[in-house]
């Protein structure tokens, strides 16, 4: 088993969270697609990290986003759910049990990394946009926004992690 790579976590924090808060939040693609890469920080938290610590981190990161976007509770709710589910989901999408504590797109096989990231991102944005929208009207517009944001955010997160991640010993 590897030790947790704290340098990796800190770099992830600055790239995914700080970059998101001060730069990427302004980006709107085709008037509907947003980019939220802070979710990447949560998804790349080490597998097997203390669950209570993991949940707290998710909640706090969500609250930070809420503070900057003025939507108190929204990101906190979705972030907490994502970090709660991510380890279970990772075990489901990988073919062999996880041995390496550090998650990155280089540690996972391409298809596994796609399913791992995309599904959780989709769930996150589904919650965010539907709760923010409220009510039943405009379902398809909201769905379109969800899909577009998921695709753009996935692309950003995947590419950024590709540049940041260490080379793995083996892919799972």
């Amino acid at each position, binding site marked *: 088993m590897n030790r947790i790579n704290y340098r990796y976590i800190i770099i992830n924090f600055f790239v995914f969270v700080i970059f998101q808060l001060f730069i990427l939040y302004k980006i709107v693609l085709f008037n509907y697609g947003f980019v939220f890469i802070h979710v990447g920080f949560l998804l790349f938290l080490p597998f097997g990290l203390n669950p209570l610590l993991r949940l707290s981190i998710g*909640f706090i990161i969500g609250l930070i986003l*809420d503070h900057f976007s003025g939507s108190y509770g*929204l990101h906190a*709710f979705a972030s907490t759910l994502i970090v709660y589910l991510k380890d279970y989901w990772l075990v489901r999408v990988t073919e062999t049990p996880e041995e390496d504590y550090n998650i990155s797109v280089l540690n996972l096989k391409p298809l596994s990394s796609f399913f791992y990231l995309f599904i959780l991102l989709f769930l996150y944005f589904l919650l965010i946009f539907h709760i923010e929208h*409220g009510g039943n009207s405009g379902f398809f517009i909201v769905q379109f926004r969800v899909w577009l944001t998921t695709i753009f955010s996935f692309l950003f997160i995947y590419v950024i992690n590709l540049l940041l991640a260490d080379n793995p010993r083996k892919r799972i």
Partner: protein
Amino acid sequence: MNRLLVFIYKIRIFAYFLLLEVTAIWLILNTNNYYNASYFNTSSAWNGFISEQVDRAVRFKKLHEINQELAEENALLRRELSFQNLKIEEQGSVKLDMEVVPARVINNQLARSENYFIIDKGIIAGIRQGMGVITENGIAGIVKDVSANYSTVTSMLHKNLIVSSRHKNSQTLCSVQWDALSPLYSQIQYIPSHIDLSIGDSIVTSGFNAVFPPEILIGVISSIEPNSGDSFHKAHLKLNTDFYSMSYVYVVSYAHKDELDKMEEQINE
């Protein structure tokens, strides 16, 4: 206590997750106007629904008392209504002091040709032999025997009980007497054959001999036999009183009934 702590320790992760999610939801509800309003609307609806169910359960327990109160209130209203229905004669006013005593049916017969029922009021409540007994829908019978707290009533479903009545449309006097065939139907007698009868016509009490208040619906005509040259129609009516489900009745007592009965005897002699 030990087991409880062990259980809490086992589910600590899920419990912490729930706690954080509830906190996030609380933040959303407090800061988002749409969900604030929706939450309060929904919670009011739920509160209302739960309160109604609790109230129903409590009211069910108090049903007997409520029924008793309603029966007494009905008796009062019927007394008032009977005064409204009385016609004032040209020579003067005919006043009949009438009291209505609510009572509960505690025993009922339907299967025999001479049926009776027992009510839970007797002499102490002011019931006397010969008083009329009505229900909220129609007439039920006439008091036969009375004890301190109970009374036996000759039911409308008694083949020897004849009730003075009137065909409402034509105001023709007639009688209603049960023919012991069905607890739902009774026979109409002594309507002259020249009177036009139709199915659905109302037959009401005539108010004669101070047993029943006038204009109380006994039933509606359900069948008319073809006239074969008789002087009177042969017809049946559907009784308005449901003797199967009869539970609360009202005993009608007239203040001057004894005096009226005496005068009637003198006329008959």
